């Protein structure tokens, strides 16, 4: 250290600690999170105090947006491949291996079965556009495709659980119909996906 008194104060700060913290946080986020899947529809789930966590595997998600359009999603590529094979057998429509592969990469879809093949040929941008105006999966009693998907999914994987993800503003009759369809397919235990809310019992603010 020079003994000469420096007239000007040093304004440089040792940033070592700051850099360490920054990179630690960065590493944490890179490892502990995964990118939010590009959802075809926007669903704002209502909140609830329930703290049960949705299982990651073997779960089928039936999403309904505010307009009542129904989308169906199932996790696991092996599940999806099995599902599409069964559905193609059921509907008598042949799917090539390539198309099945394409299907197994699709997270969530919502269109009548006859539009599915065409959807698989679209590019990512075209798919996003398609999904904006898609009619969703038919649930009316004349053409209960949702029931078919649920049943075939259960045949593909016995342990699969049903989760319903509804938008806050979805009209109740649609939800009622979906619950009825699910019950018709012999599923009596299912879950509603909600976002988190503070439990007034635990915070003591009743």
């Amino acid at each position: 250290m020079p003994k000469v008194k420096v007239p000007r104060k040093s304004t440089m700060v040792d940033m070592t600690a700051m850099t360490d913290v920054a990179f630690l946080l960065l590493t944490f986020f890179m490892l502990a999170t995964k990118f939010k899947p590009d959802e075809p529809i926007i669903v704002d789930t209502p909140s609830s105090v329930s703290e049960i966590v949705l299982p990651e595997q073997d779960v089928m998600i039936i999403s309904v947006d505010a307009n009542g359009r129904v989308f169906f999603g199932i996790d696991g590529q092996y599940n999806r491949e099995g599902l599409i094979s069964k559905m193609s057998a059921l509907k008598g429509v042949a799917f090539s291996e390539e198309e099945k592969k394409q299907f197994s990469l699709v997270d969530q879809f919502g269109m009548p079965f006859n539009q599915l093949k065409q959807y698989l040929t679209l590019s990512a941008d075209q798919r996003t556009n398609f999904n904006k105006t898609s009619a969703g999966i038919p649930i009316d009693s004349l053409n209960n495709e949702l029931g078919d998907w649920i049943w075939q999914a259960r045949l593909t994987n016995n342990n699969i659980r049903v989760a319903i993800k509804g938008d806050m503003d979805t009209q109740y009759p649609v939800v009622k119909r979906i619950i009825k369809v699910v019950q018709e397919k012999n599923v009596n235990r299912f879950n509603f996906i909600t976002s988190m809310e503070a439990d007034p019992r635990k915070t003591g603010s009743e």
Partner: protein
Amino acid sequence: MADIEGGGGGGHKKGGKPRGKKMSTRVDFTPMVDLGFLLITFFMLTTSMSKPKTMEINMPVKPDKPPTEEEQTKFPKDRAVTLILGPKGNIFYYEGLPDNLSFQTTNFGKDGIRKYLLQRNKAIHDKCTSLRKEFQEGKINEEEYKKGIKEAKSDKTGPLILIKPSDQSIYKNMIDILDEMQICDIGVFAVVELNDIEKQAVEAASPTQP
């Protein structure tokens, strides 16, 4: 590290006379930290934590068709409370059977349905609250806590809630009422269909539907 000690030493800038090839090797790392924080922000916003934020309600639904009128009369009348979810978040409720069409209106606010349910379910709710406190203080373990809650909720004097969402209600209303069931520690509740009298009453009570 905003600077690395080079040959220059600390802080003097008195280089008036050119002193040969003594170059300062001070590197300012501030931009690197900025970049680091930018990347953190990016990841914070575009990713989601894999598990914690997803919640669900487990709702076991009755497998058979809803009870017929005869079966409904077998329900202990003094325990039955019916909550009809109307439009715009209104709740119409009455106790016992729908003999008369008089029911009270409330909403989802703090002074609304929760107040009524807590009052109606006071005995069970108090038991559950004390159990929860004991569990949080560590006096009882998880197994005893769960068993205690289950026993408290199966108390035969508690209210029996029938939730009847009308066609004018929205999904959020149903989730909120199921939430209230959990918050107020209601032991027995079921989601059932409205009967005709109730449907008419809801229509009559909500004339300004678009």
